[in-house]
């Protein structure tokens, strides 16, 4: 009896079609319930007049959208989001590649170096942003102290108070935080290249730079693209750095879509508008992701 039941169960488990669904279903249900449902709710919010003070749902059509389109801050946020994401992504890939090359080499004290360079990524972003807020302080910044001691500046720079410098500071913190992740992803990809390919190239007389650009980079291009994708996602969707460092200022010069949605939706208590702004993020991110994943597939095929 028991043996028959076991056999029956085994037969069921060996049926790949049933098993495929049984294995996938829990994840799909989880995601539909806790991402799909709130996603639809968020879309509904964006067509409603729900506010913090008045949570009743009234349909207002496209009123929220036309309100945010009329607001120049929205367009500034959109532009900033793109500028931050693209510049950060490029820098993350370049520095990540350099860091991966350092970490792949053998040298004394490598364990310590690896531990130290991982720190920015493993620190919760809220805490590391606060640490940077103090590093960039208008009065006590140690960076300014060094520059003053070197005689490069007379007075403090006021990093977060000037538009250009504030933008630079936000980008720098994103890059600082995400380069370790990109380096680890690329490192794993570089280690997956068969050793004989590298050795053959070296025997053939290819120097470091030629091996780098003609062997390593083409072979690890898909992994580099993945690192770029993660860099872009993390910069694009994160609002903690902006919120802690500048709160979008000065004069909305560092406002991004995520932070603007938060200020509008929560602090401004206009949930409908907040949802409408946040809704804008998804198609943009989706388009970027599709483009990058397509490129990855093309590289893998060729």
């Amino acid at each position, binding site marked *: 009896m028991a043996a028959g039941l076991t056999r029956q169960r085994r037969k069921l488990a060996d049926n790949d079609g049933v*098993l495929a669904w049984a294995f996938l279903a829990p*994840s799909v249900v989880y995601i539909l319930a806790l991402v799909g449902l709130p996603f639809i709710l968020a879309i509904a919010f964006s067509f409603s007049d729900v506010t913090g003070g008045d949570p009743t749902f009234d349909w207002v059509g496209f009123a929220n959208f036309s309100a945010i389109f009329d607001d120049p801050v929205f367009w500034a946020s959109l532009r900033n989001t793109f500028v931050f994401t693209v510049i950060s992504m490029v820098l993350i890939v370049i520095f990540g590649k350099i860091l991966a090359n*350092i970490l792949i*080499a053998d*040298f004394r004290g490598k364990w310590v170096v690896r531990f*130290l360079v991982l720190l920015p990524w493993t620190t919760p972003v*809220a805490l590391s942003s606060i640490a940077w807020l103090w590093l960039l302080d208008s009065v006590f910044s140690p960076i300014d*102290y060094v520059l003053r001691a070197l005689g490069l500046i007379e007075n403090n720079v006021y990093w977060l108070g000037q538009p250009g410098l504030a933008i630079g500071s936000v980008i720098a913190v994103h890059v600082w935080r995400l380069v370790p992740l990109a380096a680890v992803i690329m490192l794993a990809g570089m280690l*997956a290249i068969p050793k004989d390919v590298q050795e053959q190239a070296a025997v053939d007389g290819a120097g470091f730079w030629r091996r780098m650009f003609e062997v390593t980079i083409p072979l690890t291009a898909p992994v580099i693209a993945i690192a770029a994708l993660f860099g872009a996602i993390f910069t694009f969707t994160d609002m903690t750095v902006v919120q802690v460092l500048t709160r979008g200022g000065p004069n909305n010069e560092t406002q991004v879509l995520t932070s603007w949605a938060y200020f509008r939706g929560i602090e401004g208590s206009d949930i409908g508008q907040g949802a409408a702004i946040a809704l804008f*993020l998804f198609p943009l991110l989706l388009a970027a992701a599709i483009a990058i994943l397509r490129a990855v597939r093309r590289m893998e095929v060729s």
Partner: protein
Amino acid sequence: MTTLEITDAQRRSIARRHRFGRIGLYVLAIGAALVAAGPFVWGVITTFKQDRDLYRRRNNPFVFNETPTTEHVRVLFEETGFAKFALNTLWVGLLVVAITLALSLPAAYSLARLDRPWAGPMGIAIFFVYLVPPTLLFLSLSRIVVALGLQDSTWSLVLIYPTITIPVSVWLLIGFLKTLPRDIEEQAMVDGYSRLGALGRVVVPLVAPGIVAVVVFAFTLTASEFIYALAFISPSDAKTISTGVPTELVRGDVFFWQSLQAATVLVAVPIAFVFNIFLNRFISGFTQGAVKG
């Protein structure tokens, strides 16, 4: 063969180039370590500074101009819920990692190995879920959390965080599973294991580096998450580090800098340490796969 002989001059030139390469490597490595860890080194110094040392513009910020003090570390542990926040973060992180693995490993196996025609599009669809930003969802999710009666409890985060971690984990594990040769589990099934038996005894051990990668990634994401933690939980004793430390140590415009720095260093160092240990195994697993491949 004579053309292949290396002359003394060439050997010297190679040795010199090698030496320059080594020096360059060390310079770059030390530079990278300084840029990455500089804020933390300076954070340690700041932690032990007295107020009148810290808040004087002319004082060198890199040395102690007054006697160091442990007062601000005491404040962190005795006057804020830091220990409780750390415990909450750890507790939420472990549960989320467990849920993530329990759900994403079978899902990834299903998509990577069971040859359903919908596997490809479904895999991409699941990854795209990761692109739905928390900023979009947290308003409606807070309502769902309230409806479930989980507001102000760490269980709300245990429930919601897997929505961030499952999509990435499925996607990462699909990648790892695809690098395993199919013969391995087919052989196990020929040897009399059921598909589930082969999965448990053969596939899971081989995909261990991928599981490590998922654990590390999921835990870091969870510990870092800010928006949901801020939106769902207001009482102090249920907060995580990400939200608890800033709310207790930033009061209006007053920042308790030394205690904040202490908290940052105390959180960053253990996670990076554990990450580094795992990273070794993760990377060696990768290379082994490539060598055996």
